[in-house]
């Protein structure tokens, strides 16, 4: 490999790292719900794409709404969908049956996906790509404006989210419920309230992630739901179930590796290596990157 290839490879890693912030947000959503409820919400990525679609719907009356509004609309839709998902797919499902909740979220995944397909007739819609004409050059490198925007937005969301989780009363309640549900009730924390708020907050993060992928690719398609679900799960597992820092790091790593593999081996083989990475993690380090004791549940 000569120098030029090396630069191209580094370039693709950089691009992937920037886009990886989307995966990190999705990973946070998956992992937080798992942390609080010990359940996986498989409909999460589909709901995120749904929220991005929702933002288009909300703003359909306005031509060229400013970026901030688009993303806020996506977050709003995500929050609403999140609450709906909780009430349909979690609230009334018997807790003792882990299978039932998993499948109810699968049902919701199909439901959301199909509603999107049905309302759009499967046609991909253009999504406002932001700053796609901006290119920052650093010597041989160039950083794409739209990806940089996505990255900065993703980081901002993560910082806000971490502040919410570690610096507020709600954050304390959320962590308390995830660590010790009975004691948190004894402290006067309402589990229902925390659950709903968890779904709303992760829904908002997901909505922003959905809008970010729309903005980075330049369009929205229902076909995005499935790969994003799979990527989100991969990030969650590699990061360690329930670990928020793990999800962030894993999201960036998966983004970077995916882009690198695509550069080296092409788009078809790219996912093969990502899957192998996931598989290797599951078999040899099931607790994820930051596992305290590998092999333990």
């Amino acid at each position: 490999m000569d120098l030029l290839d090396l630069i191209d490879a580094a370039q693709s890693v950089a691009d992937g790292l920037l886009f990886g912030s989307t995966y990190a947000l999705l990973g946070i959503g998956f992992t937080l719900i798992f942390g609080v409820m010990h359940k996986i919400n498989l409909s999460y990525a589909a709901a995120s794409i749904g929220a991005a679609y929702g933002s288009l719907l909300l703003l359909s009356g306005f031509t060229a709404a400013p970026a901030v509004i688009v993303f806020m609309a996506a977050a709003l839709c995500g929050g609403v969908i999140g609450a709906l998902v909780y009430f349909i797919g979690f609230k009334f499902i018997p807790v003792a049956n882990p299978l039932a909740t998993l499948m109810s979220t699968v049902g919701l995944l199909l439901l959301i996906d199909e509603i999107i397909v049905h309302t759009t007739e499967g046609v991909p819609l253009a999504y406002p790509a932001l700053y796609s004409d901006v290119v920052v050059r650093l010597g041989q490198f160039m950083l794409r404006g739209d990806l940089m925007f996505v990255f900065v937005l993703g980081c901002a969301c993560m910082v806000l989210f971490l502040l919410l989780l570690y610096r507020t009363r709600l954050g304390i309640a959320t962590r308390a419920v995830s660590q010790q549900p009975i004691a948190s009730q004894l402290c006067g924390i309402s589990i229902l309230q925390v659950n709903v708020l968890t779904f709303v907050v992760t829904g908002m993060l997901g909505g922003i992630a959905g809008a970010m992928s729309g903005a980075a690719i330049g369009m929205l398609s229902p076909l995005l739901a499935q790969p994003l679900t799979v990527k989100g799960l991969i990030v969650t597992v590699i990061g360690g179930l329930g670990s928020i820092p793990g999800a962030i790091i894993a999201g960036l790593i998966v983004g970077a590796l995916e882009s690198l593999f695509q550069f080296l081996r092409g788009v078809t083989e790219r996912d093969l290596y990502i899957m192998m990475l996931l598989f290797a993690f599951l078999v040899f380090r099931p607790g994820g990157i930051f596992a305290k004791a590998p092999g333990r549940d």
Partner: protein
Amino acid sequence: MRTIVCMLVAVAALTAGYPQAAHGQVRAKAAVTCVSAGQVLEYDCTIRLANARSGEPLSGLTVSVGADMPSMPGMHNVRAVKATEQAEKGAYKVRLELEMHGDWAVQIDLRGAVRDRVISMLRFEEADVTDVKPSSGRRGH
């Protein structure tokens, strides 16, 4: 293990009765062109059938055309409709009503002098219909 063995025996028994390898039958090939029929998700398709070997047009057949989405086996499939034969030799016409845009496997079943099934992969979009090209980057990120 016993279950598997039982099953294998059954399959062997069931299919042993069928006549073996009857090669040299007529195989068909089809050229399909579709245009939007005006309505959303409705398409008029013209199918030109020919003998795969000799290239001779195949006429006088009963042709039914269905479609399903390869990405969802057994789901989203469209009930097969009969195609009507045209004046042009080997040409048949059919109107397809699909459920969504995207890649569809159009299934052409022939009955009569020739019995065969021909599959044609087409991408149906709002304005036009194209042949599906391999690895056209269906998946983005």
